[in-house]
């Protein structure tokens, strides 16, 4: 029997729904829900994690992330402007830096800042303690990525914008500051927010610097609890704690993009 086009489409759609329902049903029936609940959802353990996971761990994760992001943003913008400079040595230095730090694991750079520098210069201290070390250690890597993003954003602003600004009598610097860079940052908000989300997760590397009860962040806190209670529930809670940060961020980006879409 030959099916007509609409019949074929209906059949195909029906099969796809059927497969979906079958898989869900199989998982629901096959899973050992009591054991899963016992391993991942012990209410007493969840309760014991509060309020510390919010007041200390989440707070520190946010602080480390913002510190690294701020450092990376400022340093990355400088690197981006150096890459676009008319002075050749500036371009060389910026290019070399970006290539180097994009090629190194963030963990290695963090070790370098956390242990290498203190060994090399024992009489000096990185300001801000663990916070400072993490902000710089993660920020050095983030700056390399952000520099490339910002440079692309500046170059994505049409040449006519700079020309129009200059013909109105603005200096190169004023035109850059009031016309080009504001537009460039609108272009790079989505990729920069991506970088912020990546940094949120990278802040979990802080444990290698030997954090204390005051400087602990989400992942280390979850792992300590895991060891303490021999139960996986803390990992689930830690994961949710990260989502509390990253999901609203995506929302903020969506809002900003909508608002700027009007002005482009």
């Amino acid at each position, binding site marked *: 029997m030959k099916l007509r086009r609409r019949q074929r489409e209906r059949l195909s759609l029906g099969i796809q729904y059927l497969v979906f329902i079958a898989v869900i049903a199989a998982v629901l029936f096959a899973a050992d829900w009591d054991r899963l609940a016992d391993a991942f959802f012990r209410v007493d353990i969840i309760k014991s994690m509060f309020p510390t996971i919010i007041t200390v761990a989440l707070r520190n994760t946010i602080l480390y992330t913002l510190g690294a992001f701020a450092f990376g943003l400022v340093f990355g913008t400088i690197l981006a402007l150096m890459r676009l400079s008319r002075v050749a040595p500036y371009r060389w230095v910026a290019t070399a830096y970006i290539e180097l730090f994009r090629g190194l694991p963030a963990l290695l750079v963090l070790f370098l800042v956390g242990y290498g520098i203190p060994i090399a210069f024992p009489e000096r201290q990185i300001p801000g303690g663990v916070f400072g070390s993490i902000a710089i250690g993660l920020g050095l890597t983030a700056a390399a990525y952000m520099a490339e993003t910002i440079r692309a954003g500046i170059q994505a602003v*049409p040449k*006519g914008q700079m*020309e129009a*600004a200059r*013909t*109105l*009598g*603005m200096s190169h610097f*004023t035109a850059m500051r009031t016309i080009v860079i504001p537009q460039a940052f609108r272009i790079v908000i989505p990729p920069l927010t991506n970088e912020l989300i990546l940094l949120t997760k990278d802040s979990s590397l802080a444990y290698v610097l030997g954090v204390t009860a005051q400087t602990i962040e989400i992942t280390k806190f979850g792992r300590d609890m895991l060891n303490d209670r021999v139960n996986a529930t803390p990992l689930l809670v830690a994961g949710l704690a990260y989502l509390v940060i990253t999901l609203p961020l995506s929302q903020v980006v969506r809002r900003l993009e909508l608002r700027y879409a*009007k002005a482009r």
Partner: protein
Amino acid sequence: MTTTPPRPAVEIRDLHKSFGPLEVLKGIDFEVAQGEVVCVVGPSGSGKSTLLRCVDLLEEPTAGRIWVNGVEMTDPDVEVDAVRRGIGMVFQSFNLFPHLTVLNNLTIAQRRVLRRGRAEAERIARANLERVGLTDKADAFPAQLSGGQQQRAAIARSLSMEPKLMLFDEPTSALDPELVGDVLTVMRQLAEDGMTMMVVTHEMAFARDVADRVVFMDGGVVVEQGPPQEVLGAPKHERTRAFLSRVLDPTRVAQLGQPDQAPEPPAAPGLPADDRHRI
């Protein structure tokens, strides 16, 4: 070369410009008197836009000298930002600042460059918006305007700096045909108000009606110039005639081979012989 006051608004002597091995301007001598409206016409690639951009130093001349309002632009020590304050530039692609409202497009340079206060800058901006018929668009963003409105806003932005000279680089070439008229009307009004204007354009009717002088360029040189009725009405040079017949009657490319003939009446539509020669 001696010049007696008042100096021309634009004075160009033996201007050459090359892009790599490509010589775009091959020795241009050219003047625009104060209050004069000059239209520069010519085929694409003739160097007319490059010439205009050299006047504002958006392109660095390879050789030759340019004076604008008596100041030598080609002097390596020229305070180019200061000279540009006296020159308005209107681009083919408008180049409004998309992140600013129309009003702020008109005030930002007044405030940053001329150091005018907000109230004064906005008063001047609104007066210029009225001049181009965009009073109600002050708070809109450029993306919310039609092409013709954007170009008029761009003209108002230049006028807000109170320039002595306005340069137009094919201001209507990016516009839908039905929007061209609004922009040309604004430009015509500007000309009637006595503004010194140098206009690179393909709008022959505008050149004929508004220009004091038409300059025809081809192949990087000025081929001929004079009052519009001469250059456009009775061109002396073969190249000018060929160009005009192409612009005014685009389907008759076939005539290029015999440019000395007087223009024939347009061929009846659908003649197969014509089709062979279409580009």
